[in-house]
């Protein structure tokens, strides 16, 4: 989770597995949201492992869909939209997408999510349940007990609450049969606050439940039928609110009502026997679960009363810090860092554990409850060895939400006694908890300005990363780490990845590889590393914080995250990067000259780069980058010259280099990055010649053939690169053909660049074409003698 102090070693191993941090200059583009697909709803929103269902996605910008990405493994096959008579796709089809979704046979039961990449973006997440119960769709006429919709258990009903009414379902029961009814709403991103009532055939209320503990407003109940006959299940929103955002998934069957498992956390790759906890778990045998191998993994496990019975789901988290399971009396001290696991078995219980400290140690205790499905709200009290209170977190009071971390300084070396209670004096087997024990209150939190990124293949995106520092003032280096610690494909590059000392933000730029399939999706962590006072700190960036005063996030799933029990870690702690297709060309660039000259000694020159709009409505200025320049050479681009004319704009570029450049020819790439209608495009001019030239050039030209015995003018043109302090240029004429004469030497004045001399041909001069004559030129540039020679001058002697 964002904002928590992380153990430095946690990521060091990952970096060792394959660093993906490469500092190369890249054109950076902002994270793209405009034109991104938005999916508001999928129907059905649940399916069984191995099942193929026809799914309908509703939302916006759903054209050019690629394959759905799912967290649980699935294949997609979209139906092509039907073009109209005019051959165009109607607007309506942009809002709906139909296809077949085949769930992987080994898909883990429980809450997953999916995303839709399209040619123009990546959708937000949408929750999807992998559930082994067959899905039944609500009949909208079930608004009264008399019209209750018949359902054969086990089943899951998918429905939507309607304003001002309830939905009724009828289940036939045999005497002595048990039934569990569980409403999923808030836990799958719905705005519905469900209420369940169980009625007998006469409408008499048998059970009522609202807001089951720790289920984010969802509720569930279990009932044993005293006699044969129907039971009526009523479900509605607590406030009678309805609408498309108030959907529900109502599970009906004989399954345990599980909240969590204990222990809820295991070491990476470790196998643990866990016990399901919740409201109806009696008779559920301990489950053996093998945790994921990476530090932040999560393993889902089905929980059922007996083989063949319908399952509920629970999960085990992976945590790579040492784990201690509390057992009273806890008389063996733990040392930071570690995670202490425990349960508040009954109301009013107070657990204790000991921490070994040194004098002035700063210790932070971070409760872990809701994230593991526990309804507990932890009160933490710290006493010294003599029972003297040191600190507690019960004065958090107004404003703070959820569990409050507690940081305290050990006043003296020795043992500190930590007491753990439920803040509201509650308890029960479901009140499981973990407490991260870490040393130092220092650290930092990172927040990203976007929750997902799309970059064209071979393109890039940028994202602002903001740091909230807590006593760590040094530079923070940002890295990308794949969510399961596997190496990312080569080609992911970062730059501007350092939040400078004392600063709080940077615009991180990330390039995506060009050789991965379009639509590839990677979940990465953006991890910051820093050190202070010999200690190392790290933290993973979280998504943008939701400002309660502002509009809720557009994506219902992201909006629901903050209140969900056991929110998917992949959503909370990682960012998806979708490699999109190549962006369409909407502009081009060209050099107005064949290459770029950089004069030695003078060390600077300028040239013009012209941007042309291919799409006439593109009116942006591309961001220019010059890649592969020789050491010491740099190019800066200025603003457009002369404004935009017919979609064309000229950038004045200035090339500079050191005085001692050795003349020669190099090449470099010009990369121009533009953004248009939400798409990004990079245009590259590859292998642009860069000529290191002398700061003086001389050339001569004879206007027309010279007749034997006749005369002709030779125009000498000098090109100076030192315009600040021009010096006279001494020009000498050399290697003229026999019989052709002219002045031996000509001086071009400092303020001039041209000289005209007269050539004379003897009458006996041989006729023909000659390319032997050259001009030598000598001058001084910045105090240095510069001598150059012209290219051969073409001379023709003819009558």
């Amino acid at each position, binding site marked *: 989770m964002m904002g928590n102090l992380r153990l430095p070693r946690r990521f060091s191993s990952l970096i060792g597995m394959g660093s993906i941090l490469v500092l190369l200059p890249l054109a950076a583009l902002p994270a793209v949201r405009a034109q991104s697909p938005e999916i508001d709803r999928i129907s059905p929103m649940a399916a069984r492992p191995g099942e193929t269902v026809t799914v309908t996605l509703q939302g916006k910008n759903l054209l050019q869909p690629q394959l759905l990405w799912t967290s649980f493994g699935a294949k997609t096959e979209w139906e092509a939209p039907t073009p109209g008579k005019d051959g165009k796709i109607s607007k309506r089809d942009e809002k709906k997408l139909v296809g077949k979704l085949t769930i992987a046979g080994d898909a883990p039961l429980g809450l997953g999510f999916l995303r839709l990449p399209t040619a123009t973006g990546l959708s937000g997440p949408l929750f999807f349940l992998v559930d082994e119960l067959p899905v039944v769709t609500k009949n909208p006429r079930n608004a009264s007990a008399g019209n209750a919709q018949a359902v054969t258990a086990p089943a899951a009903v998918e429905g939507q609450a309607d*304003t*001002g*009414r309830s939905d009724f379902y009828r289940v036939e029961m045999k005497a002595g049969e048990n039934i569990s009814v569980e409403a999923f709403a*808030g836990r799958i991103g719905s705005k519905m*606050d469900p*209420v369940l009532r169980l009625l007998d055939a006469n409408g008499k209320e048998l059970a*009522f439940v*609202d*807001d*089951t*503990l720790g289920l*984010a*407003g969802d509720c569930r109940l279990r009932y044993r039928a005293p006699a044969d006959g129907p039971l009526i299940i009523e479900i509605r*929103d*607590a*406030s*009678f*609110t*309805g609408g498309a955002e108030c959907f529900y998934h109502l599970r009906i069957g004989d399954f345990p009502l599980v909240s969590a498992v204990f222990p809820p956390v295991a070491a990476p790759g470790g196998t643990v026997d866990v016990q399901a906890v919740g409201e109806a778990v009696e008779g559920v045998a301990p489950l053996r679960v093998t945790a994921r191998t990476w530090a932040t993994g999560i393993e889902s496990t089905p929980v059922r009363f007996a083989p063949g019975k319908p399952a509920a789901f629970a999960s085990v988290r992976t945590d790579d810090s040492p784990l201690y399971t509390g057992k009273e009396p806890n008389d063996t001290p733990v040392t930071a860092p570690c995670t202490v696991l425990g349960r508040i078995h009954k109301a009013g219980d107070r657990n204790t554990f000991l921490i070994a400290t040194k004098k002035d140690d700063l210790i932070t205790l971070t409760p872990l409850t*809701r994230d593991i499905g526990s*309804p507990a*709200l932890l*009160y933490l*009290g710290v006493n010294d060895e003599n029972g003297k209170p040191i600190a*507690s977190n*019960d*004065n*958090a*009071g*107004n*404003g*703070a*939400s*959820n569990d409050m971390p507690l940081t305290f300084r050990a006043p003296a070396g020795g043992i500190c006694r930590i007491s753990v209670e439920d*803040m*509201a*004096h*509650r308890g029960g087997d479901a009140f499981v908890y973990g407490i991260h024990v870490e040393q130092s209150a220092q650290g930092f939190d990172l927040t990203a300005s976007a929750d997902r990124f799309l970059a064209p293949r071979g393109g890039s995106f940028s994202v602002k990363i903001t740091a909230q520092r807590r006593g760590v003032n040094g530079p923070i280096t940002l890295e990308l780490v794949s969510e399961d610690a596997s190496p990312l494909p080569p080609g992911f590059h970062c730059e501007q990845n350092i939040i400078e000392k004392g600063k709080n933000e940077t615009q991180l730029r990330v390039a995506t590889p060009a050789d991965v399939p379009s639509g590839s999706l990677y979940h990465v962590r953006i991890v910051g590393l820093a050190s202070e006072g010999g200690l190392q700190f790290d933290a993973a960036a979280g998504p943008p914080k939701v400002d*309660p005063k502002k509009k809720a996030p557009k994506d219902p799933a992201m909006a629901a995250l*903050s*209140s*969900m029990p056991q929110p998917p870690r992949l959503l909370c702690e990682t960012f998806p990067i979708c490699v999109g297709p190549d962006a369409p060309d909407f502009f081009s660039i060209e050099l107005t000259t064949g290459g770029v000259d950089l004069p030695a000694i003078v060390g600077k020159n300028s040239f013009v780069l012209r941007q042309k709009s291919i799409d006439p409505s593109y009116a942006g200025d591309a961001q220019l980058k010059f890649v592969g320049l020789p050491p010491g050479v740099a190019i800066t681009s200025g603003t457009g010259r002369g404004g935009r004319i017919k979609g064309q704009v000229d950038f004045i570029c200035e090339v500079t280099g050191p005085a001692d450049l050795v003349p020669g020819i190099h090449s470099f790439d010009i990369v121009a990055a533009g953004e248009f209608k939400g798409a990004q495009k990079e245009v590259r001019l590859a292998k642009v010649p860069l000529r290191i030239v002398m700061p003086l050039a001389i050339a001569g030209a004879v206007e027309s053939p010279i007749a034997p015995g006749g005369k002709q003018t030779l125009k000498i043109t000098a090109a100076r690169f030192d315009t600040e302090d021009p010096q006279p240029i001494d020009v000498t004429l050399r290697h003229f053909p026999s019989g052709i004469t002219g002045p031996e030497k000509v001086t071009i004045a400092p303020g001039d660049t041209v000289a005209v001399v007269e050539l004379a041909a003897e009458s006996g001069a041989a006729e023909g074409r000659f390319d032997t004559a050259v001009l030598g030129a000598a001058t001084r540039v910045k105090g240095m003698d510069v001598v150059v020679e012209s290219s051969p001058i073409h001379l023709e002697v003819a009558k």
Partner: protein
Amino acid sequence: MKSTSRLLCILLFAACATLRAEQGETEKPPPKLEPIRIGAPQRIEVSPAAIKLETPLRKTQVVVSGFYADGRVQDLTRAAEYTLSPQGVAKIEGALVLPVADGRAELTVRVAGCEQRIPVEVSGQGAPEIISFRYGTLAALSKNGCNSGGCHGAPSGKGGFAMSMIAFDPESDKITLTRDFLNRRINMPDPESSLLLRKPMMQVAHRGGLKLRKDDEAYRQLLDWIQQGCKFDPPDAPRLTGIHIDPALRRTFEWPAHTQQLRVTARFSDGSERDITRLAMYSSSEDGLATVNGNGFVVGTGRGQAGISVRFLDNVETCYFTFVRAVPGFAWQAPAPANYVDDHVFAKLKLLQYLPSDTCTDEEFLRRVFLDVTGLLPKIDETRAFLGDTAADKRARLIDALLSRPEFARFWAFKWGDLLRVSPATVAEAGTHKYNAWLVKAWEENLPYDRFARELLTAQGSAFEYPPANFFRTTANTSEATEMVAQIFLGARLQCARCHNHPFERWTQDNYYGLGAFFERLQRKKGPRPDETIIFSARHGEITQPRTGRQMPPWAPGAGELKLAPDADRLAAFSDWLTNPANPYFARVEVNRIWWQLMGRGIVEPIDDFRESNPPANPELLDALAKEFVDSKFDRKRILRTILNSRTYQASSRPNPFNRDDEKNFSHARQQMLTAEQLLDAVCQVTGEPERYGNLPLGTPATQLPAPQPGNAFLVAFGEPTRQSSCACERQSQPSLAQALQLSNSQTVETRLRNGGGQFIRGLTAQKKSDDEIIGDLYLAALCRNPREIELKKARDYIAARQDRAAALEDIAWSVLNLREFVFRH
């Protein structure tokens, strides 16, 4: 909440001013006194049994009571003869004994042949009495109203002179009186020139008027205190432990006996006593029934019971007097009592010579009990069934049936919603539904009231997951929590005591913060869901009395300061105390509230103002109801059933000549306008056109709403409260022009009646019912009775004259909805 507290404080200050004015003793002419018919008492009692006058300023009031063979008692103080022997030791002025010189004497009291001798011992006359700052100076200032809320005891004082209200803060008064040089009030070299004396004597302009005369005891106290150098009481000075009133705390007088002299004694920690009759302050709970002057002389002027409160600094005691007059032509007759309710009510009525009204008709009962129990009118078939039932126990059976209905639980949950301030503003939109659902459940399951209270007081966690935790969610801080708990469960308005000792009651500022200590650790924090709040009790946190700076331990009335473990759950401890069957407040407050809901007036009225100075109209009835409540393990339905089955509840609302002026003794039923929600439901029911409230299912009655409906002009006009305070007074029942307009010409009524009188009448028309049948059904639906022949004839004539039958029926329905009989519960 805050503004309500302020309003209450202002009202009480104003009341203080009234109290002061009454004690000003000059404006009102004294009531006419009837000559005492001494008759032949069997014996007399004289109080005190012995008189000790130990300083020159001590005086002793003598009170003489006569006891008669028929059980009557009357005050003979002003009829008795007093002689002192030997003379020169003391003297007597009226019934007041004053010292003259050291020595012993005997006071002989004679009346109607009875005689009693009282020893008198006078001492300490050779030296001046050292005036106690607290019990002399401040008592004198209090007696004269100088430090009352309307004068210098107001928060900002008056004319630049501010004292603590009724001397609740003697330390600050010390400074004000003696150290405030800028406004020097004491003139040591010339005490009689002190402004402290000259102003109230109007020798210098005083906006408060004449308050002090030279022959007042207060003048002597103040002058002596200044002359003695304005000394303060030494730290080990005896402390006042209480005051005592003679005669007994309850007494009944039969006209022409109608007066009673009081004698008030202060008791101190060293065992000493002092007569403070002339220094104490007096007030009557029923000014129209009894008055009391500054000397403690009570005069009854009417029939009924009055409480006379006596205050000396922060000590308050109350005695109760019932005045009975024979009414010409009165002959007791009453329906057979149905239960103990009637016994107690009838006993009081008989005593006061009020004749109870006849039992109401079945039609009246049906409409009344439906409205009171379910908030709704009966349906036509229910009315017909009940009226056609000839069984003797049909009323009792109907009561049982109604108490089992879901509408009953929803309606009474709605009533509690007012009290608990259930609204989106206080508990968020989702919270209103959850909290209301919990209340409905509590009533459906008849959750015992002690458990009900305990759940509200101890619920912790998410207020969405534990709806009773919304109880404290509606409060923002300790003060609000303390005041709300006191108002709801103790029937006490504590707002005044936040800043100073309560002016009318025993509640001190220390008590306020001591009670607040139970709630100081309450914490409120945001939950993970939008608008979710988590309520919990912190393990630490103490409350400090702002005036004294003392960290206050938890304190409860009657129990004093509780010794609790440092990390004890104080909310649980408070609940234990509150719901203890021996708690004198808990059961009484709730049965009184239930009584008020059914009878329209509390036995204690207002229902959230239980205090000694506001006695119950029928203490025996209140005690009996409370006893049944406790004995039944706080079964609210049982109390409801008891009251509903009583003849008192089933009395007609038509008064008879012998109870026409009775408003307090429940001799007849009260006619009350339906509440806003009841009336709108009734309109909807009679027209067959339901109202839509937000997202709630169409047809949800207004009397079952989880929260007030913003923007419903009809409900607002008829006084729907916004639930901003826990005071029942927030619901307005005063008639207004807006109400008349709403009924006669509003969209709410008019649109429902359009097209032939609404769905209800259209349905009857469609069934081809005759005019008489339709009119009959209309009357049954709206008034629970058949139309009288004259009403039927008028309706027939109107329909015939109008020709357009649908329009005529619409008009008739409109006229029925505008009948007083429809708008009122009677």
